[in-house]
């Protein structure tokens, strides 16, 4: 079997994607007939069509990798692939839409508002920023409505820092998502499988020294991880059930990571959904798999084999 790992791309998260791709590529090498690593460039479609590729694993983070467009391309080519379909990825990618879908299924997410830059121009930035503070109180989390890898994220504790956080965020995209910062235990729940066969891996608890940003996320040291998370049985049950409910509600396939905060009232508040979770040396899904006693190369091989056996997504 020839599995092609797609990594790189032109998004802001290219660096993380390349690191994820190399990790998965190296883990799969030796257990399949052939594993290749491919960037998303002009070579891609000829390689897919004429390169004898049996299955693709898209590991692109950020736009085109997680917004469903790359998956749509793979569907057009008619090649099986690991991960969520283009249709579901498109819904999960837009944080505001995803929050609405989750809300209808009774899944809690922090109070939020999405605000395009144009709105601030039209009605006056200071008025909007005042409203944000009045509505949510501080601290709030400001992040691009589309995107990941902690890029463009700020946690704002003081009113005077809010404008700077908005400028930082709008450098990454034209719409900001502002949400109430929830206090509690931050847990990343990885899910493997699809539908009724999906299972949640042990949670990975993330404790950050200082602010959660790119520096904390990708430099070992500033984050302390507990895998499995230091949860009571009840908290563990809630976290796992929530992650599985998100995975199924959003119609996610094969692999996902649901980031959540377990608040003081015992609720799980979902803060992010990843359809192409990071697979780097500091990423959370590999830590969860290890905590579950799973062998990563075996997990990856099973994902690839399942996708290959399932065949391509047919047009709907």
């Amino acid at each position, binding site marked *: 079997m020839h599995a092609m790992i797609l990594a*790189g791309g*032109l*998004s*802001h*998260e*290219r*660096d*993380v994607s*390349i690191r994820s791709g190399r990790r998965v590529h190296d883990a799969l090498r030796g257990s399949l007939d052939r594993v290749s690593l491919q960037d998303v*460039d002009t070579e891609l479609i000829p390689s897919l069509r004429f390169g004898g590729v049996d299955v693709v694993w898209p590991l692109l983070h950020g736009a085109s990798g997680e917004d469903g467009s790359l998956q749509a391309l793979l569907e057009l080519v008619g090649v099986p692939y690991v991960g969520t379909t283009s249709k579901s990825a498109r819904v999960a990618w837009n944080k505001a839409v995803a929050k609405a879908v989750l809300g209808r299924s009774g899944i809690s997410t922090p109070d939020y508002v999405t605000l395009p*830059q144009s709105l*601030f*121009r039209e009605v006056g*930035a200071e008025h909007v920023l005042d409203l944000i503070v009045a509505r949510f109180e501080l601290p709030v989390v400001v992040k691009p409505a589309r995107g990941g*890898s902690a*890029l*463009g994220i*700020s946690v704002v504790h003081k009113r005077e820092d809010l*404008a*700077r956080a*908005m*400028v*930082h965020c*709008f*450098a*990454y995209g034209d719409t900001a998502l502002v949400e109430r910062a929830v206090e509690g235990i931050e847990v990343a729940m990885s899910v493997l499988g699809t539908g009724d*066969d*999906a*299972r*949640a*891996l*042990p949670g990975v*608890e993330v*404790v950050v020294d200082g602010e959660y*940003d*790119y*520096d904390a996320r*990708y*430099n*070992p*040291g*500033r*984050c*302390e*991880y*507990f*895998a*499995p*998370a*230091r*949860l009571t*049985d009840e908290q*563990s*049950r809630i976290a*796992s*059930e929530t992650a*599985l409910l998100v995975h199924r509600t959003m119609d996610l396939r094969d692999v996902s990571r649901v980031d959540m905060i377990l608040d003081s009232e015992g609720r799980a508040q979902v803060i992010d959904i990843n359809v192409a979770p990071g697979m780097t*040396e500091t990423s959370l899904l590999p830590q969860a798999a290890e*905590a*579950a006693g799973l062998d990563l190369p075996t997990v990856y091989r099973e994902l690839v084999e399942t996708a290959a056996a399932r065949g391509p997504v047919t047009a709907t």
Partner: protein
Amino acid sequence: MTEPTPTPREGTRLDPWYGSYAQRAHQMRASEIRALFAVASRPEVVSLAGGMPFIGGLPLEELGEMTRRIIVEQGEVALQYGSGQGDESLREKILDVMALEGIQAHPDDVVVTTGSQQALDLVTTVFIDPGDVIVAEAPSYVGALGVFRAHEADVVHVPMDAEGLIPEALEQTLARLKAAGKRVKFLYTVPNFHNPGGVTLTLERRPRILEICASYGVLVLEDNPYGLLGFDRDPLPAMRSMSPEGVIYLGSFSKTFAPGYRVGWAVAPHAVREKLVLASEAAILSPSNASQMAIATYLEHFDWQGQIKKFQVQYRERRDAMISSLGEHIPEASWNVPDGGFYVWVKLPEGLDAKSMLPRAVTARVAYVAGSAFYIDGSGTDHMRLSYCFPTPDRIREGVRRLATVVDSELETVRIFGNPGGAREGTVDFPAPDIF
């Protein structure tokens, strides 16, 4: 199906040696900015970031044959360890290169290094204890700041103007530091076609700077990778030529020939040179014989001065493309017009922050280096460095056109939010090597 709850264990910081690092290593961290540069290597992106010379302008076929002959005919020397001070025949030829800038020296005065970057590291190792002061231009070469930071030096910037480092400002700074009881070990300066400032220290100012440093007992570290790459006139005399005992001179083949060989050199007063050789042997044993022999052969058998003239013509054409595009597309910014070297130092319109604007630039498929990389404290975010050395003139024009759209949209954001003060402070960028 849900996994049974396993027993919690202790936390991990994903690095078992986290508690063992030297204090200085904790600030060596991959930054958001560095991650963004991953995109700059893609052909879709016009990179105005890298200080990479135009290697395509070299006679690659002939150099290939030269390399083949070195290995086939002298391989037993080329692939063996060499002298810690460097190959003597290369050191002799380096004298010919330096003579173009008025430096008289003996081959024994020259220490060959793995790029002048290693010479920077050696000089800093030999002179700097943690907390010692290094005075440097504002802005200053990012690679030097990295070395100084790693040695825990206290870097104090001194402003420049269109004529280079300002003598009065230098004198005031040295007087202030002396009054504060600070020990200044050396002045670090790039006098010709400054990186990133693009300016050249005038002939008139050179003796004045040397006098001021001598009167305060401060050594001068003259870093000169670009001196032979002037567009309109012969090179100015090196500061070393005016004060052999007060100046350590650093030279490089990286910008005038090819950085891939990693060959540079230092010329230092006798006693200093001895220490540099010992420090270099401790660090790397010896520089690469194969690289040194390639450079010596190139200097012996190729028209290296003719090649430099070709580079001058090519770089001037690229500079002209950049300057005319800036005038056409981003007239609200301001910049110098360098008469040599690789860089234009651009001051952004009021309120813009080059560092926080970079993600937008990456989206628009253009890259530059934010000014903050060139200040020890991460200030200078109102500037950016644009390099014209590597892209073709057409690509430069396209890159500046894209940059103009980025500036426009960032201006729009700043108009909406006022001037909120730019990117968060307190983070230090470690740029990738190809931007130097």
